[in-house]
């Protein structure tokens, strides 16, 4: 089966330095892959390369079996992207922001569907008509997650999606991701949260200094990746 997302011996240079170095992985349809790593490990860079904003210096990135460089537009059309520190327009309310971004992506979505997605992320109803500059960090993040859901794409690239969310919201988010995967969506998610990654992902990749230095699959560990093992590997590598 063709992997939905694939990195092949990927090398990416930024400002003359190799930020990703010989990174290879493949993510199957319906799989949740969590990319774990410290600050500056190259996680966001990986996502930006799949989106075609950075070009591989060597190797390749493929979306649905097709090199991103061959047709960036087609790759982007399949992907809902949630950037790190996602900031929607402060002078617009949640509906206007979602409407704008969805329209930009060529999607027309009813008010009811917007409300359904905002219900899903538990954004308070009274807040939805307010300008987003009055939102808390978590409320903004929830709105951005709702946007990713509303895009209704086969692939989701999520950069630190749980940052700013409270523990209840994080649990709800994980349930949501698993439901998406169950419905056949492929999720590549970047995080610092070892516990969360192990809880939600089918596979965890450990990125360090631009190299993929570890990979942990739930299937190898009887359905659930062991947090302790991953945490130890993460800490060891960070110390190295």
């Amino acid at each position: 089966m063709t992997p939905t997302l694939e990195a092949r011996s990927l090398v990416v240079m930024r400002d003359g330095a190799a930020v990703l170095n010989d990174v290879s992985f493949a993510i199957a349809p319906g799989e949740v892959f969590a990319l774990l790593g410290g600050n500056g490990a190259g996680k966001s860079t990986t996502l930006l390369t799949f989106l075609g904003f950075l070009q591989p210096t060597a190797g390749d990135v493929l979306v649905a079996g097709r090199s991103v460089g061959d047709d960036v537009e087609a790759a982007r059309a399949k992907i809902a992207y949630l950037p790190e520190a996602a900031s929607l327009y402060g002078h617009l309310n949640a509906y206007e922001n979602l409407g704008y971004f969805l329209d930009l992506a060529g999607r027309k979505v009813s008010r009811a569907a917007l409300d359904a997605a905002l219900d899903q992320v538990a954004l308070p109803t009274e807040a939805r008509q307010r300008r987003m500059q009055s939102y808390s960090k978590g409320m903004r993040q929830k709105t951005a997650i709702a946007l990713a859901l509303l895009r209704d794409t086969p692939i989701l690239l999520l950069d630190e999606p749980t940052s700013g969310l409270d523990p209840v919201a994080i649990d709800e988010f994980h349930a949501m991701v698993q439901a998406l995967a169950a419905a056949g969506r492929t999720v590549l998610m970047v995080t610092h949260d070892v516990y969360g990654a192990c809880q939600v992902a089918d596979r965890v990749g450990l990125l360090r200094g631009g190299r993929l230095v570890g990979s942990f699959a739930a299937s190898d560990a009887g359905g659930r990746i062991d947090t302790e093992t991953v945490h130890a590997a993460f800490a060891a590598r960070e110390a190295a």
Partner: protein
Amino acid sequence: MNALLREARFLAKDRGAVLWIVLALLLSAAATGFGIAEVREQRQTIAALLAEDAKDRANAISKHDAWGDAAYDAFHLTYAPPSDFAFAALGQRDTAPWLHRVRMLSLESQIHEADTANADFGLIGRFDFAFLAAAVAPLLLILLLHDLRAGERVAGRHDWLVASAGTPRRLWLPRAGVRFGGLALALLVPFWIGAAIEGAGFGAALAASALVVGSLAAWWAIIAVVGRRNASPPALLAALVGIWLMLALLIPAAARAGIEAAVPVPDGAEILMLQRDAVNDAWDKPKAATMTPFLARHPEWRALGTVEKPFEWKWYYAFQQVGDQQAEPIVTAYRQGRLARDRAAGWAALLSPAALTERGLERLAGTDTRAMIAYEDRVRAFHARLRAFHYPLFFRDPPYDPVVLDGLPRYDPAP
């Protein structure tokens, strides 16, 4: 279409951008209003003088009983009425004279009396639509477009937006386009209303609109190229304002200074002095010093060209004409010099979209240097008809009959 609607709604919520567009609308309304008020005032000045013109002349003539005296006191109004498009570009009408009261004396000093300051080149003209569209509008466009990309980059939204849109074009083109269109409409709508009020021709209004949109599009291209750079919004703004200063103000000013240095033009005041001296000297010179050059020009009066008395009108008016003949080289140099400067300014304008636009609008409005010189030439042609009418009266000297003067040539302002 859908993208334009989306961006129009988005723009409507962007208070800063809306403010600049509203400001453009107000400035355009003000510039159009000023322009219309100015040309109306000019028309009123002309109408008021025109109403008195024939009466004043009849009044002056009635006091006399000789051809020469009557000619001496009879003033004739000459003028270049503003075109129905002049409100948009007052151009040289601001500095060059467009109205004279001439009589049978030496003409050139009468023409150039008003422009002794030789103010052909004002640095910044009056605040009219042409100045707004050519020089101010690009600055507003810069304010609207400079941080389109950079602003989103700073907000951390750039990649998110482009990833959503699929391609950068699908986002930036409609987003910039709507702002561009908003600014263009804010500038043009008051202008169109002004053109309708003034009854300006559809073709001229259309050409002017195309010129304004075209020059703004050139600025858009400049902004797009600079705005693509990975710099902060304030840095981009500073760079673009610098380019604007260069293209809209410094290059035209430097070109003007360079042209004035490179193409010498005699001072208008010189014509005045030379001619006054020529006329004053004529009194003391032998009659032949006047009549010989005069008759060389007018051989038809040779038979009647001898002056016997100490004062004869034919001699008096002959030396007025000889004053013009003596001024001819300097007048020609003045005329040619101004045209040469204007041609050079036309070439220099290729370096500045602002100068190019302003010149284009002045051309359409008939307020450019060429139009003002064409008016001077109309005054000369009229004065020549006046002389042709009077010379038979001075030389043949039939018995004075004021009815003959009803046949005096009339100035026709039509180009």
